């Protein structure tokens, strides 16, 4: 080996080492700063009482001597998109349940996590792993943007699968798997109803991310919903994260509309905020709760845009206006202090609470049929969600796995103040076969 080659290889190794050091040093910095809340949160005893009633267990600690009840838990993080808050919140819920709610029928609950970074193959691997794990009877999914078809196929007949939020047409069409939260696929009717009946808008501009299937579906059903409600609208697509939102807003008529509806993922929020401000759009803007992320707050000069945000759950960023949200915050503060409370965290947390409720009724080793039967018969409430749900009520519209189309619209007033959410149940407005 010549000196030059040796030197070059040394430089490459040094470079690689630097890269690793650089990235390694801050991989831990994914923790987001929590939103400071001025309200006093209810104490853990209140949380324990309320949630014990809800899940139907005996308040108190689970018996560590008893064998644990294992639940498979599949989340997506480390790639694009990434939701590390789901696992953190779920683990917090497990700790709370084991400490205060008596676990599952007195037995401690334990999660068997599996992480999908970004590839279909990883989702398939997680499913195969769970299929072969004898300890697991129930697999709880968090939001997965890839590979769910192979997850359902692999686990069908082998393990009970409980959904969380649908992210693709495959999820909404899945048989015997229920999604408690409507996701992009069920919130449009609610938006349309709010715009038509609460804002009393006659003319709406809709801008959505055209390259994201969820947003495209949302746009289609919003269009249908507005049609049913007699609201005129115009819709224009942009690309995710594109800088060119201004053209789309103008083209959709945002400057003269009564309301602007923005259906997009987080990267599009700040460009939209800038465009709205620069164009001088006066109409109220309705955006998805993806835009309440801390990154949007930071990029927008330290405060979220004063829009109305659409969420599937109660507004956990505003515990002052919602009791159940406050209890959630209290539990998270105790068992995962400093962790992110928004994003997917409330859904993941509530999914675990729901699983505890379900297993308390069905026992620790339910069959897949028993689990799907339970969901079909479950009328609600979701602790952080609507009072009433009806899983499978949209089966004739080709969406058998959805349980509700209720959404919570929360107007933001600035400086951390929120108006109380408006709960809108859209039933099947805007959804057609």
């Amino acid at each position: 080996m010549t000196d030059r080659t040796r030197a070059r290889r040394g430089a490459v190794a040094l470079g690689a080492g630097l890269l690793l050091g650089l990235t390694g040093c801050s991989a831990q910095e994914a923790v987001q700063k929590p939103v400071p809340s001025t309200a006093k949160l209810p104490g853990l005893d209140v949380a324990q009482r309320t949630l014990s009633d809800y899940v139907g267990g005996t308040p108190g600690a689970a018996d560590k001597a008893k064998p644990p009840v294992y639940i498979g838990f599949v989340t997506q993080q480390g790639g694009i998109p990434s939701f590390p808050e789901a696992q953190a919140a779920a683990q917090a819920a497990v700790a709370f349940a084991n400490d205060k709610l008596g676990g599952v029928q007195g037995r401690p609950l334990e999660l068997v996590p599996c992480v999908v970074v970004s590839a279909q193959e990883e989702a398939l691997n997680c499913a195969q792993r769970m299929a072969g794990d004898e300890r697991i009877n129930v697999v709880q999914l968090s939001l997965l943007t890839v590979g769910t078809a192979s997850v359902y196929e692999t686990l069908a007949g082998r393990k009970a699968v409980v959904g969380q939020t649908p992210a693709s047409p495959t999820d909404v069409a899945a048989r015997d798997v229920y999604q408690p939260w409507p996701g992009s696929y069920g919130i449009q009717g609610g938006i349309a109803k709010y715009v038509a009946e609460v804002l009393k808008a006659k003319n709406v501009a809709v801008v959505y991310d055209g390259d994201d299937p969820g947003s495209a579906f949302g746009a289609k059903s919003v269009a249908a919903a507005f049609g049913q409600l007699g609201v005129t609208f115009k819709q224009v697509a942009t690309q995710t994260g594109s800088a060119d939102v201004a053209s789309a807003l103008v083209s959709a008529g945002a400057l003269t509309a009564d309301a602007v509806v923005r259906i997009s993922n987080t990267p599009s929020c700040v460009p939209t905020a800038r465009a709205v401000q620069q164009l001088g759009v006066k109409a109220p803007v309705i955006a998805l709760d993806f835009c309440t992320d801390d990154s949007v707050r930071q990029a927008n000069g330290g405060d979220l845009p004063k829009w109305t945000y659409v969420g599937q759950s109660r507004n956990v960023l505003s515990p002052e206006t919602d009791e159940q949200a406050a209890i959630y915050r209290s539990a998270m503060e105790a068992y995962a202090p400093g962790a992110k409370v928004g994003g997917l965290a409330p859904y993941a947390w509530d999914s675990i609470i729901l699983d505890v409720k379900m297993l308390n009724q069905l026992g620790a080793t339910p069959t897949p049929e028993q689990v799907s039967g339970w969901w079909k018969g479950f009328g609600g409430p979701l602790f952080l969600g609507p009072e009433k749900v009806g899983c499978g009520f949209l089966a004739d519209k080709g969406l058998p796995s959805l349980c509700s189309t209720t959404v919570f619209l929360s107007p933001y007033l600035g400086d951390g103040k929120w108006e109380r959410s408006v709960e809108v149940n859209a039933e099947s407005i805007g959804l057609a076969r």
Partner: protein
Amino acid sequence: MTSSLGPEQVLAFVALGLGYGALIAGLATGLVVTYRSSGVINVAAGATAALVAYVYSELRTTGVPFALVIGLVVAAVLGALQYLLVYRPLAKAGPLAKLVASSGVLLTAQAVIVLRWGADPVAAPAILPQETVDLLGVSIPQDRLLLAGLVIVATALLWALYRHTRFGIATRATADSAKGSVLLGLSTGRLEVANWVIASVLGGLFGMLAAPTTQLQPTTFTLLVVPVLTAALLGGFSSFGVTVATAFGLGVVNSLIALLQGQSWFPQVEGTPLPGVTELVPFLVLAVTLYLRGRALPDRLTAVAPPMPRAPRPRRAGPAMAVGAVVAVAALAGLPFDWRQALVNSMLGAVLCLSVVVTTGFVGQISFAQMAVAGAAGYVMATVGGDLGLPFPLPPLAGIAAAVLTSLLFSVPARRVRGLQLAVLTLAGGVAAQRFWFGNPQWGSGLRPANVAPITVFGMEISPSRSFWGTEPPSQGFGLVVLAALLGCVFLVAWLRRSDLGARMLAVRSSEAAAAATGVNVGAVKTLAFAIGGLLAGVAGVLYGYTFTGVSADRFGPLTSIAFFGVAVLGGVGTVGGALVGGLLVAQGLLFHAVTTWFGIPPDYQPLFAGLAVVLTVIGSPDGVAVSVADAARSLRVRRLALGES
């Protein structure tokens, strides 16, 4: 202001599109600079510009002074390092190796961004004034106009630099003839470093300036790779003026399509404007322009084809295939589930690599469209099986037929467009297919699940979760089906290489002119190669559909196509063995699984290691790993013989 189609509206939208166009122009100009000096098509340009923007953003938010200057220095260092560590060792390698190296840099840069700053969007502090200006009745943000102006100024300066200074003339001389320049006493190394620094600083500057117009997110700039390449390509990778004009054109087209979407006559699908038009229009313009500019045969003066990896004639494939089949079956029987799945993933990857071997390795057409062709097969199969409800084997046959037809579509421009131009064209085509077709609510998986019903033969299901052999997914029965398909494809490609058609394909690859002069119908040979490549990609696409119980559009995007092509080249595009090695190397394949399991590399670090591995491997084996291994084996044999004799 209404959004009707008056001339003021159109002009206003044109102005709005300038900011996006300016960013593309800044990156595309850098691309032209690096191509002219080193012959590298730097697909990583957007990613490295994004990295600089991220660094700048972090420096600003933590209050470090002179952040802009530090950002520019970082950009300069990045440019110099890329040249010194990656492209200088590859100076003598062919264009494929350089392309793969730049895709490795892309993966690495992207991985570093995600690891350091996460996947969530990050605030990008503004440098240019954000207030608006009233122009033609629309408020246009000032920073867009300033960016556009800056790009024009920068390009003009660059043009003057390359035309009138000694440095510029020396660079152009070196690009034309490295040997000649050395004789003239020019230090080619120093010139190239300088050029890379210029390109990188330009990209970094525009990255920092343009980042505030969009939130900084790992893929925002990287996905610009197709418009940036399109602009540089239409400028012939040499003219700054045409490149910048095209870049602005693309920005304006983007904006105008947004305007048109609001019109009632714009085509709609299920109530929403037709998706993918933004990607399809530039691709069509590019295809038509290149086709018209191209020539049916290269003329005598340009007849020297770029060096491609060797494609030696295989020896009798029979015994090797039999041994391989036995080993694979034993592996299916004995390995635990995750290794079995990794084996299946590798076999699928190998089939797709075989399609690259035929289109690129044998006939020399650099086509990035193989993944899109595979996707076409998957979607047609899902539609025929799902919507039309036809039974097995019609859906996969229909899928494969669709793949062949799609591949033949790509063969049309290949008759007149060559080398790296064809590479860029097929990449743009693949992206257009992904958005326009796969993302379409009706034909693709936009609004319906593109699910695939499992293979059912004589009433018996053969799928990864259940089949005649195996109860634990992935089932061994399904593994056998994949293995049988792979063996069939291996046999086809080995036979092809040994046949007269194969010889003609390699003749066309070596010298189209000489092939024509020997009576070979060059156009027909290229078409046949694309058809066979399409067949192989179709088989892969169909099998992917069965493996994952469905087809999803994100599998076929530009970054995946680039990464996959890189793996195929790393394995070796000249031989069947190279395709098998490519299969081993493919993401989620056997080697990947082995390394991550044995060395416990956490999942979020895997993309970083993959990117570094690509760069290091291509530097060590520019002709592909399979060829290096074969060479090493041969020299070992020779040495043993020599030792034996002495």
